[in-house]
């Protein structure tokens, strides 16, 4: 599989024109900061919750095309979902990154385009960064806290 196969047009589109990329969010419930010291990726993710559902989610930070594009596609797939459902979808994406067929391909929306990344083990953590930040934001919210910082070690 070539590099061009990994970087599909859908991924490049999200990278060039990211959805829900913003440095702040009105009425945010939780802000989390995730970093990946190995490649120097940094991500801020903010979540607004209404009626136990993802009302809005935005991300900001620095990272490679895969991490930025995956976070963009993630926001599009989870906005409007119940928190529990969003966690379930996160797990589906995580499994896909470890080689499984996605059970909820339609719900992942453009997220399915990242299936090929699973073949590049060092890039899997890039694709997961936004999703792991979302999972952490939801869990932080459920704990009743409003902020959390995570450093991903390998």
């Amino acid at each position, binding site marked *: 599989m070539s590099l061009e196969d990994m970087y599909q047009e859908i991924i490049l589109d999200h*990278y060039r024109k990211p959805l829900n990329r913003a440095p702040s969010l009105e009425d945010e419930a939780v802000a989390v900061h995730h970093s990946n*010291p*190995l490649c*120097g990726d940094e991500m801020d993710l903010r979540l607004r919750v209404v009626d136990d559902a993802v009302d809005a989610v935005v991300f900001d930070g*620095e990272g*490679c*095309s895969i991490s930025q594009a995956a976070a963009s596609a993630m926001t599009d797939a989870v906005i409007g979902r119940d928190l529990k459902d969003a966690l379930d979808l996160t797990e589906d994406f995580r499994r896909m990154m470890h080689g499984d067929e996605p059970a909820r391909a339609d719900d992942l929306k453009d997220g399915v385009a990242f299936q090929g990344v699973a073949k590049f083990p060092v*890039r899997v953590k890039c694709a997961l960064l936004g999703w792991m930040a979302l999972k952490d934001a939801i869990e932080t919210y459920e704990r009743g806290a409003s902020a959390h910082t995570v450093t991903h070690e390998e």
Partner: protein
Amino acid sequence: MAFDVPALRKEFPTLQREIDGHRLVYLDSGASSQTPRVVLDAMDRYYSWSRSNVHRGVYQLAEEATDLYEGARAKLATFLDADPRGVVFTKNATEGCNLVAYSWVRRQLGPGDALLTTVMEHHANHVPFTTAANELGFEVRHVPLTDDGQLDLDAARELVADGKVRFLAAVHVSNVLGTINDVAELAGVVREANPDAKVHIDGAQAVPHLPVSFRELDVDFYAITGHKMLGPTGIGALIARPELLESMEPFLTGGDMIRDVTLEGATWNDIPHKFEAGTPMIAEAAGLGAAVDLLTDLGMDAVREHEVDMAAGLLDAVGGIDGVTIHGPSDPALRGAAVSFAVDGVHPHDVGAMLGSKGVCVRVGHHCTKPLMRCLGLTATARASAYVYNDRDDLEPLVDGIEAAKTFFAR
């Protein structure tokens, strides 16, 4: 140039590979160098002919193994212009730095003392000392950088002025900026303020690329690593003043490093054996000895001359690309051939992946220098680092790959 690069390249099996139909262009020797046939043969000869343990055997194989191991020590001592009694084999440079941190710094420094280091240290020469400082309560001071990525010696003079600095830990050549530090002068600055201060230099990126004389540098400790100087992984050395090693307590204890052992305790073997506990890396020492022979044959002056040329080529070729910024000194005479760069709007990871898909190997990330990255306001860079088997033919695939990344990832 005094050696024939294309002929030399043939001696490195890995460099004969192709990646997806592309010639392998290895520009990551700053992380680890390739291994020449002579080094592989030396290790193979040990395993298939003289395989036995060192030092205690009274039969021929054991004598041969001991000769290989101690012979490598003698070669390294000659290569670095040091006393063989001051050459301690370690696993790598990191272990050398830890030996110094544990056996000297942690036993000597305490509250009221200060240790001077720089903002451009590799984690190997940073974490052992900051951890000690945090536990023992001595202060750590940092020499800052000038705009051109050099150590600011005027600032260093101010940092030592109160006479509290008892130890200097500094890198000889930066693995990120390529800067060659005038460590002898920096040592002079420290000793002028405190004549008893000790000096430890991280030479991991210097010894593979420049002529180094431990005697002329006139420092106390100097750590090196074999896998960056054409040798195998798993072996490095700490070079030290013998009289200092004699006064120090061991780092690791156990077999081989003792003179006598009773039920209650032990006395220590002579240096350098006092610092080499357990069965050492015998095959790796044989391999490192062969690497030293090869570097000696090439001549370190010629190696340096070649790398000045490669540094100049890299600075011109990569620095000449629109939207590319180079970190570190702009004068090839002041730097090694490890060149870190940023491509406007393209993350280093993506640059590296694009280059990798075209057979060009460069390193991306923070290069184990997170404090330096913070200081430069960066999270990561891409780094191309050249060595004896690279020549200017390797620059074209590098430049083409960077251009391809720019086009592919243009927003």
